[in-house]
């Protein structure tokens, strides 16, 4: 064998050399210094191909957040808005919002940030893009000063409006004003000009590399200095590969769901998460069991209540999730929205696992097993069999579906798990072709309005694309949700009053059944970078994640707060 190695190596050398010809020869040869580079993974599911902040869900990791920035951030801990590109804002009356921009902010091409930039960004919504719907209630946006924007509303919806303000990235007028529909939707924007703390350095199919913008306005205005000179975000690989890279400290922060990470955190001192003990992770969104209300039995609130009582959520949490997640509150609202939960009402009306109670509710509502096959029939005596769909390959959800089916069987409900391809499932549920499914399409945001908008949105269309997949029709709940959208953002008590009324309807009807809080998966290596956010009071409390739209909820601070290990 030994004599054969040489030709093998020679052939290899030749072939690899030819392989190199396809690559461009840019960049330094020394590589990024390890102690100045932050390696992250867990956000990108494909190669970076565009840096267009309007192409939501498609742009490279960090495009919005690291390069393009919003006017405000939202602080979920304090339930408050932090001025970011904006310096201050004011509501002269409920139909007018005046936003003043900070002085001295420059785009990376040297132009100053002006009010026209904000107006242009808003007006891009006249094209068909993901935030076109703001023009349903925005009447006009005008630059009333060099750095002052006045937005008037045809219908005041401050919660919905602030969701835009605290989420959407501002683009420069001097580069975006002349774009047409096709350019706004298709332009990869390969040379992104933003205001943010990082600039484009490089990319390949399996990584996105950002370099620190040393002229960033935040250093002076906010006293924030980004720790890493380079951020290399690695496109998601398989769980084994990610686990190996984390174990070898080749990545500093992984935002993947890694089954078994709890054992690693327990065993390896240098790998940490937010909590030292279960659930280890903070929560990012709620996983619901979504019933199809067009189905005869699932349209019956009593049947849904029985189903909710039948599910032993602890079995799911300790099983497939190895205690990495927490059970959801009966309202399903995430922890940062705790102020909006009517805890008295929940204590009274909330549901919990109780198989006997489930059986009792079923019997009272007329669902009994007459033919003796072990499963209940509908009150009309029709056999009842339900399918619970979760996307194929989502192993944690697939196991959860199996457990739910087992729990349902114990109280006499026939539930069969099904694992269609994700795209097929999406197509089916949009057209109401499903019985039961698990879904978590809405997560943490600046307002519980987004949560209730998801559950109650009316009217029901032929295809339910972004909200109310259950097809739950309740005019009263939807009207309350609309009132919530119109509540001023600083009126938390007023909002809580409305959410309390909403929760009364929610808990009585259970249009969807909250199951558990999916984690904000984040495990970090402390070998190169330390001071990661944790429950320890000496460490930061911001989110440690590269996930899209979480920079706006404070994850950007984490990048300034981490410290290099000496």
């Amino acid at each position, binding site marked *: 064998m030994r004599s054969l190695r040489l030709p093998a190596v020679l052939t290899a050398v030749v072939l690899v050399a030819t392989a190199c010809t396809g690559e461009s020869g840019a960049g330094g040869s020394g590589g990024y210094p390890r102690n100045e580079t932050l390696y992250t993974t867990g956000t990108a599911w494909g190669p970076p*191909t565009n840096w267009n902040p309007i192409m*939501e869900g498609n742009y490279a990791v960090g495009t919005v957040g690291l390069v393009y920035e919003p006017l405000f951030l939202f602080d979920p801990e304090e339930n408050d808005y932090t001025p970011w590109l904006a310096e201050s804002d004011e509501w002269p009356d409920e139909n007018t919002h005046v936003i003043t921009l900070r002085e001295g902010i420059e785009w990376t091409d040297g132009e100053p940030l002006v009010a026209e930039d904000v107006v242009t960004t808003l007006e891009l919504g006249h094209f068909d893009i993901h935030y076109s719907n703001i023009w349903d209630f925005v009447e006009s946006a005008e630059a009333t000063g060099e750095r002052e924007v006045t937005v008037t509303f045809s219908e005041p919806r401050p919660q919905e409006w602030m969701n835009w303000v605290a989420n959407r990235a501002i683009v420069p007028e001097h580069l975006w004003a002349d774009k047409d529909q096709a350019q706004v939707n298709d332009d990869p924007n390969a040379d992104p000009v933003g205001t943010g703390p990082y600039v484009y350095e490089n990319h390949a199919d399996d990584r996105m590399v950002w370099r620190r913008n040393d002229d960033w306005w935040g250093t002076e205005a906010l006293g924030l200095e980004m720790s890493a000179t380079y951020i290399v975000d690695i496109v998601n690989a398989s769980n084994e590969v990610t686990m190996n890279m984390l174990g070898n400290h080749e990545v500093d922060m992984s935002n993947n769901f890694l089954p078994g990470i709890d054992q690693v955190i327990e065993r390896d001192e240098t790998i940490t998460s937010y909590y030292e003990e279960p659930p280890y992770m903070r929560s990012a969104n709620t996983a619901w069991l979504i019933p199809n209300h067009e189905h005869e039995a699932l349209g019956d609130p009593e049947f849904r209540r029985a189903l909710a009582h039948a599910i032993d959520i602890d079995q799911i949490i300790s099983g497939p999730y190895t205690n990495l997640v927490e059970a959801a509150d009966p309202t399903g609202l995430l922890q940062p929205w705790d102020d909006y939960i009517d805890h008295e009402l929940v204590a009274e009306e909330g549901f919990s696992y109780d198989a006997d109670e489930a059986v009792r509710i079923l019997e009272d509502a007329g669902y009994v097993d007459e033919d003796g096959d072990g499963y209940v029939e509908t009150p009309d005596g029709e056999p009842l069999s339900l399918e619970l769909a979760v996307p194929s390959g989502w192993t944690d959800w697939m196991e959860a579906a199996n457990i739910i089916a087992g729990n349902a069987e114990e109280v006499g409900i026939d539930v069969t798990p099904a694992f269609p391809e994700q795209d097929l499932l999406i197509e089916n549920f949009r057209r109401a072709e499903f019985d039961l499914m698990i879904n978590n399409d809405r997560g943490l945001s600046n307002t519980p309005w987004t949560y209730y908008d998801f559950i109650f949105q009316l009217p029901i269309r032929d295809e339910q694309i972004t909200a109310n997949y259950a097809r739950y029709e309740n005019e009263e709940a939807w009207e309350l949700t609309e009132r919530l959208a119109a509540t001023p953002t600083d009126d938390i008590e007023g909002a809580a009053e409305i959410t309390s009324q909403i929760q009364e309807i929610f808990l009585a009807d259970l249009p969807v059944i909250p199951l558990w809080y999916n984690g904000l998966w984040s495990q970090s290596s402390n070998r190169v970078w330390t001071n990661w956010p944790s429950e320890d009071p000496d460490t930061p409390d911001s989110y440690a994640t590269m996930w899209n739209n979480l920079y706006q909820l404070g994850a950007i601070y984490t990048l300034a707060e981490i410290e290099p290990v000496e």
Partner: protein
Amino acid sequence: MWRYIGRKLGIYGITFVVAVTINWMIPRFMPGDPVRSMLSRASVSDPEALERMTAYYNEVFGLDTPLHQQYFAFWAGLFRGDLGVSVWLYPEPVVDIILRHVPFTLGLLLPAIILSWIIGNRLGAFAARSKVLDNTVLPIGYILTATPYMWLALLLAWALGVVGGFFPTAGGYSFALTPSWTWGFFTNLVSHWFLPFLSMFVVALGGWAIGMRNMIIYELEADYSNYLQALGAPRRLIRRYAFRNAMLPQITGLAVQLGTIIAGALLTEVVFNYPGLGTLILNSLNNNDFFLLQGIFLFVVVGVLIANFIIDIVYVLVDPRTRVRMTGGAS
């Protein structure tokens, strides 16, 4: 000779058309709508805007025309070297994406196939005439061929990568480097290449060695060998003849192997997170990217056909019987 090549070319032409047609058809009969899945990632909140965007992208991808028009447009594009635009990596052209990944897959596959074939055949031939080798190489070969590839690859990554720390376990080159013509980058590339290569090489090696060893033993028992031996020919000569004859089925085997190897590369690339065509196939499948999938399969089909054509010609050169049949047919 030319008639033989001409006939072969004709067959390959037909195969090409049929294969390309099937490639074009299969993704379109898969459940799911590429534009919808692209837009569902974009979290468009306004249903009417979504309707309009769907229509817009359907037009961009030509999905709003009748199927037969899409089919002819596809052939027309093919001859212009235009395979369309990827849905998953919108708005990048499919050709660019494939060209970026091909060097990695070829750099992995060609050495692994060719070296394992050459070395496997040598080893097998040696094993057939040495008891010691036969008792060691053969069992190892059996174990290697019988091992599930995934498991072997994970074991290699774990032993030589995680525990040993000799080789990196993921990626095409270090995440700290940008491609450049430097020695540092080159060695880095080779070190990332080595483990995936080794796993494919080792698995294929066992199969070839066993096949060759069995063929040699069979040929040594054949009448012509016995006849040569009876004539008093030296053992070396007999073995050389046996080896030549045993090579023929192995060459056919190589041709067959080339067709199935892409599937093997897919697993390798997933296990080692190697940026080749295999991972691209998986991703384009997951994202309903018809155009990319079509493009990759087209590339694979062309590759396999060319490889088979070369082997057909090699066959003529190494097998006198094919040659005789052809000249016989001509006279």
